[in-house]
């Protein structure tokens, strides 16, 4: 079964990346600490009025997530640059897209764990009241993470091999994430309020479509990007 072989490759690459992170831990800790630090700074800059902070909570959590996720994406390809690791990876038999899928899976797990901590800290620091619709909020968060990781992983595969990776990745990635940020933030804000306009569901559909479009587009384009 060819697809079973491919799936094995995908898992192997994801496991390799996550094992490296697990053995090191410094990377994950640093990325999460940055996210929390950004939340604290935003709280100081926007507070101390409790109501103002509550209204800004969604935006603050997403900004903290974006800035710290960028570091995670760059790291995931940076480790491949040492001792020609990427070249060896490309030498292995099997389709190239499995490399992308593996990186995607690894980053998805990494960023989900990171976001779980950032969101928890954000809820506490910004005094968010959890509404009954919290499962939908988690769904929005999940869709947002998928879109972020898809584009982040794709652009990092280029930016991390360029001369100015620290600045290039956010420069490429953030403008592309505008629809994702708007959809996730507006839908979450609507649900944290009363969603009187019933606008959340339209945004959720947009978010899902966005994820799907770029998942397909980046899979098609990755082949051209990864060549040494």
């Amino acid at each position: 079964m060819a697809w079973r072989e491919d799936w094995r490759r995908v898992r192997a690459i994801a496991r390799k990346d996550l094992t490296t992170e697990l053995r090191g831990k410094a990377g994950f800790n640093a990325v999460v600490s940055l996210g929390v630090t950004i939340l604290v700074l935003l709280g100081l800059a926007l507070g101390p009025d409790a109501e103002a902070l509550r209204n800004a909570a969604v935006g603050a959590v997403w900004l903290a997530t974006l800035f710290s996720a960028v570091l995670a994406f760059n790291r995931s390809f940076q480790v491949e640059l040492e001792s020609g690791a990427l070249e060896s990876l490309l030498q292995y038999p099997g389709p190239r897209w499995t490399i992308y899928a593996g990186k995607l899976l690894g980053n998805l797990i990494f960023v989900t764990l990171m976001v779980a901590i950032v969101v928890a800290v954000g809820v506490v620091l910004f005094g968010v009241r959890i509404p009954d619709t919290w499962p939908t909020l988690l769904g929005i968060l999940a869709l947002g993470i998928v879109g972020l990781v898809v584009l982040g992983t794709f652009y990092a595969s280029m930016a991390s091999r360029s001369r100015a990776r620290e600045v290039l990745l956010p420069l490429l990635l953030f403008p592309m994430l505008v629809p994702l940020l708007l959809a996730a933030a507006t839908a979450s804000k609507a649900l944290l309020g009363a969603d009187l306009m019933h606008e959340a569901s339209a945004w959720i559909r947009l978010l899902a479509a966005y994820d799907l479009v770029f998942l397909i587009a980046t899979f098609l384009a990755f082949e051209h990007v990864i060549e040494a």
Partner: protein
Amino acid sequence: MPASTPSSDPVLAPPPRTSLWLGLASVIALVTAQTHAILTSPPDADMGHLQKIMYVHVPAAWMTFIAFFVVLVFSVRYLWQRRENDDLLAASAAEVGATFNGLTLMLGMIWGRPAWGVWWVWDARLTSTLVLFLIFVGYLALRAFVDDTDQRARWSAAVGAIGAINVPIVYMSVTWWRTLHQPPSSPATLDAAYTLGLRLNAIALLLVLIYFIRKRYEIARLERATEHAAEAVAMGGR
């Protein structure tokens, strides 16, 4: 899929010179169209002579979209056929498109200050034009930071194509988010006194767009020919 062979043009063959006539024609067309528009259009009932900004602002916005479309087409064609010239053409269109995009934003703000009382509003059209500009900037930054010509071509083609896919999505999301802009000016929404001026200026700016892209493309070809020549010399050619 062809291997990553840099499609090498004949090493020193100079690219064809962009005709001087195209440049002259676009200057004359622009001067004529602007003069015609400014002299013939009556002051607008609400905006007075401020309305004249429209004759550059609106066509410049259209040219931005045309340029972006050129980037999309030649990026996709590069990924498909891997011809170096397609990459250079896409890059030239992106530079010119970013210039027109910046011009659209600046003129819109100059108009918005007296008309709306503020330099900037977070309206759908303004915001998506700004995001488009940032996507262009990212594309050009990528080109600036990658040295290997083959890698630069492949990467920027991918970024150009995926960025172009995002343009309608950005537009839609920002429209949902907020809408305040007056319906976009086009010959259909305008009083007859203004339509001819707008059409003439659109044609004039289209000529300018084509001339700029061709000129930039010609320079890019020359730069590439120089690089190939330097390589040939370094390899012990002549």
